[in-house]
């Protein structure tokens, strides 16, 4: 048999398989082969995650001058904290293959690495702190499903000691008092936050003491060096963080005192108790002069330094002498995004404006405007803007600190719909796309449950939403508060990104039906009268799908971002389909590939399927420093 003939047969088999309303082809493989493929895919995904997130550690001095590093091998670091004598760093490193995380101690001078914990698969450690004499490291660990505070010698020798068994979960261990007698930790969830201290005397039945409880989230409690006060971070219901100080004794009077005017991260005291540091919202390292006797007071809030450039780095820890500031630089250096439009071959058609901190670009239905999320470092906000493609004129749509995602244009282009993260919920709002007027509440689903819009029916009557693994449809007519959702597609599989055909008769969606941890595109009939799916199902993709699901305006082509396990490059796939008289599907083909990493989202593709817009990463100038 000739190669050409073989290819023709293979082509035909693939085409037939793809056209049939089938169950997953992966089910036809042996379990051993399926498991092996899944393990290989997982390993590749882990490698990509590592490549995107791994970095090292560097240090700055009080003037913002880089004085040390890189420290440590490239890794996914979290929770770094400098030892009291400033010679070492305790830090958590993720182990993606083991699905775990462990504490390590890095010697700043020699670079020597000492492993402190060894977690079992799926167990992890977080929030390390140092004992005041630097001989031990305490941390929060999940052990056999039970969270607790543990400690171990910083030499890595000796057994792990359970300090306190947490009856719940998600505590954030923050500090060890200078006299060595007390730990502080916080617990925050949607009900609010609580600050605790834990006396180390009285083992094994140590009892945590509640210091304060609020409706807001709080964390990062740090003892003043004399142990009389605790500084901590509170995040209010509009997502704004502030630093507060209060007595460590719950019976003591006075406070809390707000020492910041907008803050991110946790506070740090200088060891003489005369300075308190935190990161302002614009990432500048800020200091206040403080006294703790006879009571707490503060003056002279000022900026110490901020790394300059378009993307200032984030200081994560500060030494006890206030001289060393720890930073984990972004893995690929500072990055901005250039909004760029490509044609169907991946050639650049247009660059829009200057590079900035952009994400989620989305074409308006008439293709004349873009909707984008623009990050503002100064205000620590991410807001929606539109940009006129012909003139480059930007128009601001939102101006708030709430998280936002999954924005959609209405079919007539007059509104945008988006999910906004507020007080633990994901209500959906809409507002006019010309920037006038306020936002209008659209829908609230189960409290606390994720909800992201994925499409609006062509007649504007239905809003399709991803409810965290299944698809619901919300009627847009009537009073917003009385709207009742329809469960359009809810089964045992992870179904996301519901997208209606331009004639509204079919719904394409992503599902892990064929193989867990891997999505493929399927199409089902959609009943516009009831928002339910009809009989029949067709699989469109064969090699995995990530995002960007889109129908061409004439309903004859469907696009998506293909799964790429070999690199972070973005590959755009399309397939020809017909929706009338019956549904049929051709063979998927790659349109083009772009060097990654590039995020893909709904709205990347113009309605006519001729233009593709992405926020392409470009290197920003490396940080320099600006003294106070």
């Amino acid at each position, binding site marked *: 048999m000739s190669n050409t003939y073989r290819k023709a047969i293979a082509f035909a088999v693939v085409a037939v398989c793809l056209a049939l309303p089938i169950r997953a082809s992966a089910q036809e493989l042996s379990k051993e082969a399926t498991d092996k493929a899944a393990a290989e895919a997982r390993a590749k995904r882990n490698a990509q995650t590592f490549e995107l997130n791994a970095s090292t550690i560097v240090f700055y001095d009080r003037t913002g001058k880089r004085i040390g590093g890189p420290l440590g091998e490239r890794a996914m670091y*979290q929770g770094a904290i400098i030892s009291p004598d400033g010679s070492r760093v305790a830090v958590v490193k993720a182990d993606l293959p083991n699905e775990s995380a462990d504490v390590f101690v890095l010697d700043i001078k020699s670079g020597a690495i000492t492993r402190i914990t060894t977690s079992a698969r799926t167990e992890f450690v977080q929030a390390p702190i140092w004992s005041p004499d630097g001989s031990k490291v305490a941390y929060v660990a999940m052990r056999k499903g039970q969270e607790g505070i543990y400690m171990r010698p910083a030499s890595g020798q000796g057994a792990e000691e359970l300090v306190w068994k947490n009856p719940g979960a998600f505590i954030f261990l923050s500090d060890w008092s200078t006299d060595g007698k007390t730990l502080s930790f916080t617990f925050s*969830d949607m009900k609010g936050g609580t600050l605790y201290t834990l006396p180390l005397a009285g083992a094994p039945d140590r009892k945590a003491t509640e210091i304060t409880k609020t409706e807001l989230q709080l*964390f990062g409690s740090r003892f003043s060096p004399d142990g009389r006060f605790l500084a901590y971070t509170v*995040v209010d219901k509009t997502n704004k963080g502030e630093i507060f100080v209060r007595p460590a004794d719950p019976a003591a009077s006075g406070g809390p005192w707000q020492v910041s005017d907008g803050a991110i991260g946790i506070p740090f005291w200088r060891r003489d108790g005369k300075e308190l540091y935190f990161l302002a919202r614009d990432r500048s390292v800020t200091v206040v002069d403080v006294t703790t006797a006879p009571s707490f007071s503060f003056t002279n809030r000022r900026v110490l330094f901020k790394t300059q450039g378009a993307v200032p780095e984030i200081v994560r820890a500060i030494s006890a002498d206030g001289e060393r500031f720890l930073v984990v630089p972004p893995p690929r250096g500072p990055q901005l995004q250039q909004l760029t439009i490509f044609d169907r071959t991946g050639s650049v058609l247009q660059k829009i404006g200057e590079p900035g901190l952009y994400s989620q670009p989305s074409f308006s239905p008439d293709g004349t405007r873009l909707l984008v999320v623009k990050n503002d470092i100064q205000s620590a906000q991410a807001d929606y803007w539109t940009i006129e493609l012909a003139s480059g004129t930007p128009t601001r749509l939102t101006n708030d600190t709430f998280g936002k995602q999954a924005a959609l244009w209405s079919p007539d282009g007059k509104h945008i719909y988006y999910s906004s993260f507020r007080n633990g919920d994901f209500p959906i709002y809409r507002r006019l796309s010309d920037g006038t007027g306020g936002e209008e509440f659209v829908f609230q689903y189960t409290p*606390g449950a994720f909800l992201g819009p994925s499409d609006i029916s062509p007649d504007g009557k239905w809003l399709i939403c991803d409810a965290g693994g299944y698809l619901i449809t919300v009627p847009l007519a009537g009073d917003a508060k009385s709207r009742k959702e329809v469960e359009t597609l809810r089964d*045992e599989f992870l179904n996301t990104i519901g997208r209606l055909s331009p004639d509204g008769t079919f719904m394409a969606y992503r599902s892990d039906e064929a193989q867990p941890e891997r999505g493929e595109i399927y199409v089902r009939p959609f009943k516009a009268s009831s928002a339910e799916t009809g009989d029949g199902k067709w699989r469109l993709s064969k090699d995995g799908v990530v995002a960007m699901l889109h129908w061409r305006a004439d309903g004859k082509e469907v696009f998506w971002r293909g799964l790429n396990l070999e690199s972070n490059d973005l590959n755009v796939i399309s397939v020809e389909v017909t929706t009338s008289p019956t549904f049929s599907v051709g063979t998927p083909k790659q349109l083009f590939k772009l060097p990654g990493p590039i995020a893909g989202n709904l709205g990347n593709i113009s309605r006519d399927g001729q233009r593709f817009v992405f926020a392409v990463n470009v290197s920003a100038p490396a940080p320099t420093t600006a003294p106070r």
Partner: protein
Amino acid sequence: MIRRILIAFAFALVPLAHQVMAHHNMTAIFDFNDRVTVTGTLSKVDWRNPHIYLTVDVKSAGGAMETWQAEGPSPTWFRIRDIGKDDFANSMGKSFEIELSRARDKTPMGLIRTITLPGGRVVSACPQNC
């Protein structure tokens, strides 16, 4: 689990990221500090996203029957661990033990921490639900 690690990593950076960790509804509905172990007969399995639900009929100390509803991870979570709907469906009508984080409103409902199937197999939903 990887998602939790990544979220935990983001959590350490800025307070805004902590909101992300707290977005799921589990801590709003269930009290992780209030745990209960119930033993009863499995009477219903709802095997759908985003969470499975098991219904267990439990005889109380006073002899009255009480119906408990237990929320678990997603079917996909079980699929990845080689546990299928049949593992539960085959246990219908049999004795069943579940450790739960109890609902805050004290109704007979909870978030599954561990399940002991009739054959003795223990299925742990930790660290996902712990």
